[in-house]
């Protein structure tokens, strides 16, 4: 290999190293922190930021994403799952059954007049919009359009 070629390889290796130096392999969770920012011109803002904590998702965690908050860069986390089920410390995860049921009135207090995916028409009637999806027929190599027609959804006892 010539000196020029070796230099190129070293440069590529350096770039790769710099690009991934903050990503850490292991078991991760997203931690959350509220940040209040101040800046020039009396700027105030607040963000909910994610941070890398030890947790139950196997993969890499990088906290190099950033968002400006009144001119100050605040960094937030991104987990890149590797699809492995290798976090042995997390085998004690509970199965959730028997959660306390919220009263319809209290549920409506929090949801107010908006439910994601549904168009609220009244306190207990909403419209579920039509959904379209394509599925591939692997034999004919053709796509088929599947429709889920829109419909009214009536919730017993309010939202």
């Amino acid at each position: 290999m010539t000196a020029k070629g070796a230099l190129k390889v070293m440069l590529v290796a350096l770039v790769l190293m710099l690009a991934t130096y903050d990503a850490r392999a292991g078991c991760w969770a997203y931690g959350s922190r509220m940040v209040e920012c101040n800046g020039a011109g009396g700027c105030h803002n607040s963000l909910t930021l994610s941070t890398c904590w030890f947790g139950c998702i196997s993969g890499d965690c990088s906290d190099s994403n950033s968002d400006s908050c009144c001119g100050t860069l605040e960094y937030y986390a991104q987990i890149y799952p590797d699809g492995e089920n290798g976090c042995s410390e997390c085998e004690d995860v509970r199965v959730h059954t028997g959660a306390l049921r919220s009263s319809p009135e209290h549920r409506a207090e929090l949801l107010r007049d908006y439910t994601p995916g549904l168009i609220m028409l009244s306190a207990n009637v909403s419209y579920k919009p039509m959904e379209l999806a394509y599925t591939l027929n692997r034999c004919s190599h053709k796509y088929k359009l599947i429709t889920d027609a829109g419909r009214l959804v009536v919730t017993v006892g309010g939202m």
Partner: protein
Amino acid sequence: MTRRALGVVLYFCCLIATVASQTQAAQQPSAKTGPTQPSANKQAGLHLVRVDTVDVPSVLANSFYSPFKCDDDGNIYFQNDLRSPGVQKFSPKGQPAALFQPTPNAGNKIDDAGSFALASNGDLFELVFPHEIKRYVFAYKSDGTFKSAIKLDPGFPWLPYALAVFPSGQMLISGLEYDKDRTAAMWPFTGIFAADGSLLREVKLEDDETLHDMGAAGDSRVSVLGNPQGNSAVSASEIEMAADGNAYLMRWTNPAIIYAISAGGGVVRRLKVDPGESSYHAGTMHVFQNRIAVLFIEPNTYEKIMKVVDLEGHELATYNESRAPGKPQAFLTGAFYCYREDPTRFTFLGANDDSKLQFWTVEPR
């Protein structure tokens, strides 16, 4: 065939028109529910006015990480550096009083330190996240001296976010635990822990299922930037002790939902504090004796509504802070750290033009 296709097109046109008109109708404020009207007190025009400023030129004030707290002597506690976790304590005059640092006292590398609580004897308890699945509470004396590391043991992996300490030493801690599908939206979990970290009792809260459902649906009111499992209604929860001996746990929702929880883990009551404006979000809550002050913030203009209620949720006062004419934002920050009565005063972390820390005291006028 053509006629049938025309029929289908007409059907969809009618359907779209019907839904559009119904949606528009749904978005119109009805006479029954009405638009969110300002309360009588707010209309009366009681505003928050700054009456005192303390300069702390040694501290940069670009960012503060919640929570923000004060003790009975008026000392201020806050965190302003995620890279070097630690709680800073300052006197009301702006003098550094103590530093509570987990890093030198942990056996393992620290990923982060989280919320903290002040005990009635002045000790500080801080949630700490070493690089392991176990979560800890670090206890410090009021001068910052490390006392102990308490390993929390609920029996399953979780992320604790808010805590309070009862005079008995038992702790109320609220956070999120994993779903069986670890990549799915997490579930709220609240428990009473013994002073040694063992779980004494799980506290079931009525709205937890609703909050979980909102998180699972990606509802923007509780979802967290870059965090599909997160739920800010839970992770930004706050807990403070009141004069009746109960802990008051506030979910970060609109309306703010507050639960009074006894040291035994019983849910004594559920309070609702409604700012009367749907665009505001809950900010910070502080308890003074038998009153609770909740700050609500409008995220775009940063205008604020301060609601004061008693321990049963009865509204006692509403104060607001609006933009001055020509100003893009209201002047107060969201870093509300102290509430006192006689006279009614609220104190905030702020910054001067050089981004140096200031303590701002405001009064309703």
